């Protein structure tokens, strides 16, 4: 006769609750080598790499970052605060961008008097916030730096102009408009700056092709740079 003592212990109903899985991030890449045309011999073919989640960094941010965000005290205007690689990024609602910049410049405890311009970035995979305007600010008074980022969807590419706060943004916003099609409302003369005035499209966007022609050399053809194998 078998005694119940010998049987493996069966866990009863007291199963610990499974924590809810974090929401799945969009897939950044499948496989290792970016090839689809040949058999996978590496074993990496099933690899799925997801994009990093877009999260706010939890406090404390470290360094002067906490103090800076506290003094700014515009939490309702800031969507996310990201501290990464020793740099502070404030993701600001676009309708409040001018207000945030004004306060960053004028508050005596902040005094970001020097702006290093506007840089655009196009993230076609971020639905609803495809176009980013990235502003790097520097405080000479306090020797600090901060990055302010505002985004706009492709369908409505409007971001308010900050030329009124930082007049040096004039050419920078024209450049971001030229390359990304971000329309800076309130800019005194938003025209193309690098490309000819009658140019079609905005060249730095990810959906704008690089162009280029294949090069033939000793019978072999080297494809144009954007047609070559990509590993990412």
């Amino acid at each position, binding site marked *: 006769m078998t005694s119940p003592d010998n049987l493996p212990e069966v866990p009863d109903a007291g199963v610990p609750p499974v924590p809810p899985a974090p929401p799945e991030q969009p897939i950044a890449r499948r496989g290792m080598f970016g090839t689809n045309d040949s058999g996978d011999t590496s074993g990496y073919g099933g690899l799925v790499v997801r994009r*990093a989640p877009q999260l706010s960094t939890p406090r404390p941010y470290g360094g002067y970052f906490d103090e800076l965000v506290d003094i700014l005290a515009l939490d309702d205007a800031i969507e996310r605060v990201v501290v990464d690689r020793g*740099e502070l*990024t404030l993701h600001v609602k676009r309708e409040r961008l001018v207000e945030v910049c004004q306060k960053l410049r004028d508050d005596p405890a902040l005094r970001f008097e020097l702006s290093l*311009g506007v*840089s655009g970035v196009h993230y076609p995979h971020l639905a609803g916030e495809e176009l980013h305007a*990235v502003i790097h600010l520097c405080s000479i008074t306090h020797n600090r730096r901060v990055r302010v980022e505002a985004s706009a969807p492709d369908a409505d590419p409007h971001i308010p102009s900050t030329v009124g706060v930082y007049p040096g943004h004039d050419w920078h916003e024209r450049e971001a408009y030229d390359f990304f099609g971000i329309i800076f409302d309130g800019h005194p003369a938003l025209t193309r700056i690098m*490309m000819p005035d009658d140019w079609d499209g905005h060249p*730095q966007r990810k959906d704008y092709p*690089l162009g280029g022609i294949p090069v033939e050399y000793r019978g072999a053809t080297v494809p144009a*740079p954007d047609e070559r194998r990509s590993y990412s």
Partner: protein
Amino acid sequence: MSTSYDEATEGKVYSVNGADWDQVVSNVRDSDDERLVINMGPQHPSTHGVLRLVLTLDGETVTEARGVIGYLHTGIEKNMEYRTWTQGTTFVTRMDYLSPIFNEAAYCMSVEKLLGIEDRIPARAQAIRVMMMELNRISSHLVAMGTFGMELGATTPFLFGYRDRELVMDLFEYITGLRMNHAYVRPGGVSVDLPAGAVDKVGEFLKEMPKRIKDIRKLLDENPVYVRRTKDVGYLDLTGCMALGVTGPILRAAGLPWDLRKSQPYCGYETYDFEVATERGCDVFSRYLVRMREMEESLKIVEQALDRIAGPLKGDPVMIEDKKIGWPAQLALGPDGFGNSPDHIAHIMGSSMEALIHHFKLVTEGFRVPAGQAYAPIESPKGELGAHVVSDGGTRPYRVHFREPSFTNLQSFPAMAEGGQVADVIAAVASIDPVMGGVDR
């Protein structure tokens, strides 16, 4: 957005494109409007490459000045999105072609920040970077001074500037293999160590250069014509600089000792002994003085860096030890005049299959950079040069944006030129020292 030609102009318009002069005069004789809109550039010897200035004149006075740029836009930032991280250095070096080492350094520091390897860059590589950057600062300032003199009508400063710059170019050619477009600074360090004899050559240069700088100073410092053309011309004070985001010698000539090498040191600049040159004149002459002082200070830094390279850091590696990032081959100049790496080739072709695979992977595929963005600012000869680099985790940059000091500073020329004479426009633009390769990228 655009206005038609008729809407944009008022009154009677005379377009003059090289017609018979008598005819031009008879055409405008009956007009009492003195307003004249002229186009300076884009092909004008005194506009630093292909820069176009649209000037509205009232007699000799400039009432409105506008800069038009974009004639040298080459899409470098877009192109980099289709190359590996390492190949990026060969692109950025061509942006501001008079200060290539700075472009490379800013880009590489940004990539290193993204990789999180800033603390693991060998000290020797940092010292070589500092030495090369300061040599480059001297050559860039020499061109600024030389072309400046020529634009004001004096050819001797131009000849002096270019003659002396040749000394730096020779050093660069000896060390990197190329006079320009070096691609010498790489993510993780520098591409090759100094060749044999380089330390002596830089030593000779350090002996020779102070004399050359003194020569230029003798020629210009108290030259009455030069001083009259530059003093109180192109005035831009601290408030104007701050509002327009102007940095570099223009800012320091307005009295603010803001130099990233001191205020936010990188590459170990905090361990070097030098001073930040400032002036209070806010004018073209002050900017000239700041640049001259900076060249002298740069010589001090080069000397200190050279002492370290030849002394305590001798024989140390110049590339990060991490084999997943550091370039595998160490090129050296061969007897045929080409760079090659015989030991490395023997190793990968003859003895190690794994090394060959690794070499192939690293060179063709490149390394991956964790997703995120970074901004690395450095003090270039023209001002704050910053590389805003975004990665999506792949082997290619997702987006690279250069905060070019020339681009930002050039915006300030209407503020300097409006209300002045036509001749002062030339002086104002020259004092900004814009390099169109950097402005247009």
